[in-house]
Structures are given as C-alpha cells and as structure tokens.
C-alpha cells in the first residue's frame, strides 16, 4: 500500500517536473526542475531494487551533468527572451508547425501507452522473478560488469576520454589553441 503511494508520488513528480522543464522560458529554471525530476527517478530506481543505479543517477546526472549545464548557462549569460516570438505561446496556440508538433507529441503518448498496456505478461507484478537482495548488491553488478561486459566498459572509458578532449578542443577560444 505504501509502496503504491510512493510509486505514484515519485512518478508524478518525475512527470510533472519534466513537463514543466520543456515549458520554461528561463533555462536555469528548466535545469532545476530537471534535477527534481532526476531525484524522483532515483527514488523509482530504489523501488526497483537498484540502489547502485539510483546513486549513480544522483552522482552522475544530477550532480555532474546538470552542473555542467548550469555552468554553461551561467557563463553564456544568454538573454532570457531568446527564441522566436512564437516560442513563448502555449503549444496549442502556436502557428502551424508548433501546434502540429504538440499534437504529435500527445499522439505519441497515447500510442505508447496503448501499445504497452496490451503486451502480454506486462501486467504481472514486478519482482516475481529473481532475488531482490542478490541483484541489488553492488557486488553482483560489479561482477557482471567486469566479466560479461568488460569490453563495453573499457570502450566507454575511452569514449569519455575522447569526449573530454573533444569538449576542451571545441570550447577553446580561437586564439589560444
């Protein structure tokens, strides 16, 4: 019972915060709302017996990537009213393209929800298979990560290195290369 309440609360926060993110004029507000959404998602991961992923979500997404976004927004000091005039209108009242896009997004939600609720074996309670303690331990995640997925792990570390070098190079000023 309390689990269901918690799920609806967290899912509600995540969805509402994300919906508000795409509607804000000020990018700083968008970022803070997105951090709230990530926090709610982290709670959902804990409910799914994945504490390591939950903490990684907070550390990596909310604690690092969003700080990066925040720094860029602050340093660029972009004018808040940037964007076309019609960007500020309500999605359903925008000219042509905007209204069509908003309607398509709504249609996408309806389609996805329709499809997902008609798949077999999806209505069953989660957590029926697998031992919660076994798969939630960091030891189990680490064991599989470094044996079955070790190649992907090493490739990802090289990817981060490349991204780091690339970001420094791309953002450097013209004269100071």
């Amino acid at each position: 019972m309390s689990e269901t309440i918690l799920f609806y609360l967290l899912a509600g926060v995540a969805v509402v915060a994300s919906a508000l993110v795409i509607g804000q004029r000020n990018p700083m507000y968008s970022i803070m709302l997105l951090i709230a959404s990530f926090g709610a998602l982290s709670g959902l991961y804990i409910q799914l017996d994945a504490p390591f992923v939950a903490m990684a979500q907070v550390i990596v997404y909310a604690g690092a990537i969003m700080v990066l976004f925040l720094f860029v927004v602050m340093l660029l000091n972009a004018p808040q009213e940037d964007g076309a005039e019609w960007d500020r209108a309500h999605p359903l009242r925008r000219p042509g393209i905007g209204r069509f896009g908003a309607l398509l997004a709504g249609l996408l939600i309806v389609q996805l929800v329709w499809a997902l609720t008609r798949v077999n074996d999806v209505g069953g309670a989660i957590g029926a298979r697998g031992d919660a303690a076994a798969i939630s331990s960091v030891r189990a995640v680490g064991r599989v990560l470094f044996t079955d997925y070790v190649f992907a792990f090493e490739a990802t570390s090289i990817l981060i290195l490349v991204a780091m070098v690339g970001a420094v190079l791309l953002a450097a000023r013209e004269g100071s290369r």
Partner: protein
Amino acid sequence: MDQATLRFAIQLAIIGFTFFMLINASALLVLAERKIMGFMQQRYGPYLVGPHGLLQPLADILKLLFKEELRPKDADRWLFTLAPIISVTAAFAAFAAVPWGAETTFFGLLDTPVKLGVADVNVAVLVVFAITSMGVYGIVLAGWSSNSKYSLLGGLRSSAQMISYELAYATTLASVIMLAGSLSLREVVDAQSGYWLGFIPRWYLFLQPVGFIIYVIAGVAETNRAPFDFPEAEQELVAGYNTEYSSVRFALFPQAEYINMTTMSAVATDLYLGGWHGPLLERFGLGWVWFLIKVGIILFTYIWVRWTVPRYRYDQLMQFGWKWLFPAAVINLIVTAAFVLYFNV
C-alpha cells in the same frame, strides 16, 4: 505498548535526536571556532554572554534573526531563496546515511536491537557522496541569483573547487571500500573492530595513512574551509557567494558549512578511525561516546588548521587538487588494490 510501535517510536526519537544534535553541533562550532581562534591568538574570544561566553551562539542566532531580510531588486526571486535551502538540506540529508553508534536494545527495553543512526543503507558511502555533491548547487545558485559580480565569481570559483576535489575524495573512498569489501558504512566500521597484537586497534588509518591525509585535505576543500576558502575570503571577494544575503538566508549558509564539516568528520571517523569502537566504553553500550570524541578531534583539527596556515590562491588551489591530490589518490588506489589482491585481506 507492543514491540512494533515501541520500535517505531524509538526510531523516530533517534531521527529527531540526530537532527537536534546536528543543529546543536553547528551552534557549538560557532562558539568553538571563535573560542579556539581566540586562544590561538592569545586572547579570550567571546567572554561576556553567559559564563565564559558559552551562550554566544544564542546571541549570534538572535542577532541574525532580527536583521532585515534584503533581496537585491534584480535578483532572481525563486533561486535567491532556493539556494540556501538547497545548501542546508543537502548538508543535513548527507548525515542521514552515517551511522553513529552500535546496535543497542536500550538496556533491554527492546527485544531486538535497533541500530543507532538515521538509516542503514547498504550503499551508504555512495549516498553520502551523492548528497554532498548536491550541495554544490546551493553555492552556484547563490552566486548566480544574487546578480552581483562578486557573488557570481565567488560562486563559480567555489563550485569549481568543490567538484575538482570530489575526484580525490571519491578515489580515497574507493580505496577504503576495497579494504572493507562493502559500501555500507556500518560494515566498514565493524571491519575495524578488534586489535592487532592486542593493543593496536584495527583502524584503516594504519592501513591507509596516505589515504586518510588525502581524504581530510579533500574534505577540507569540499567544505570550503581552512586554507581552501578563497571563494569566501573577505579580503578578496567581499564575501563571495553570500555577499548579498542577510538574516535567515545568510544564517543558513554557515550552518550548512558547519554541518558539512561535521558530516565529513563523521564519515572520516567511520572510514578511518574505527567509528564507535574503542577500549572500555563499548561494553556499557556507550560506543557513541568514542564516536563523539573522535569527531570532536577531527573538528578541532579543522579549526586548528584554519587559524594556523595562510590561504591558498585560487589557481594554486586548483593546481593542487588536479595535479597533486588526485594523482596521489589514484596511486593510493592502485597500491591498495595490489595489497588487497596479494595478501587476500
């Protein structure tokens, strides 16, 4: 009252007690800092309020509460108020995953022992790290939303410093986790019980001396204290990110800083100094007294260092964090890994 509700009530009481003690800790640290600073400078420090100045924090808090709440006209309304809230919430929440005492039945009141600490999570080390890294937002938002160049520079520098020293901090955490074999702080502490040769306690301080030093330095830099407090230095940046704040909003920033200090000291005690294990007192269920003593020693060291050494310049600070501390932490990690593998510790 049956056992279940009694247990629930006691757990609520422990949570309330921990919160209350954290607030007291920040008040006490205000006094301790000024008194110790005074004694180191061969003067008395606060002396008038209460016996020997012991009620000075009360006077400070009352003064701050009665000041006028200012907000610069062009400051962002929501973020200006949200910033200190984030700082202080992250500071308090981080302590939730830190255990401060062994299991106790409160002298037979309960059937099964209850653990002393707000929550016992099996990824406690990660939780503390995650929540303290959320504290960066308080400072960044404070700097940005004040709409003032001193604040913005102070906020940016402070947050850049915090995220730089998080690397060394996390790497030393990884070394201790390797030794203990678990991410749960309670298990890390319990792995440090017992003695070698009968009298040397099995603290990780002796197995990881370099790691402990790196951790304490990174902790000091994380909390923007001591020689790493350039971003809030009075002489350079007026007051850094909290220049435009006054009254209660301002009061929350130093409180967040002191509670962060307390959390860092508590985690250092749990990881390196054996937590609540110590001679004699544990038999009577008073292990938490040892915990308090050890945390107190580390807090005293924080204050001691602040008033002894001069401040680092900002570029020296960043160089030190990236070029010296982080490589040292990585080498420490590699050596620890080799040690664990070879000796099957």
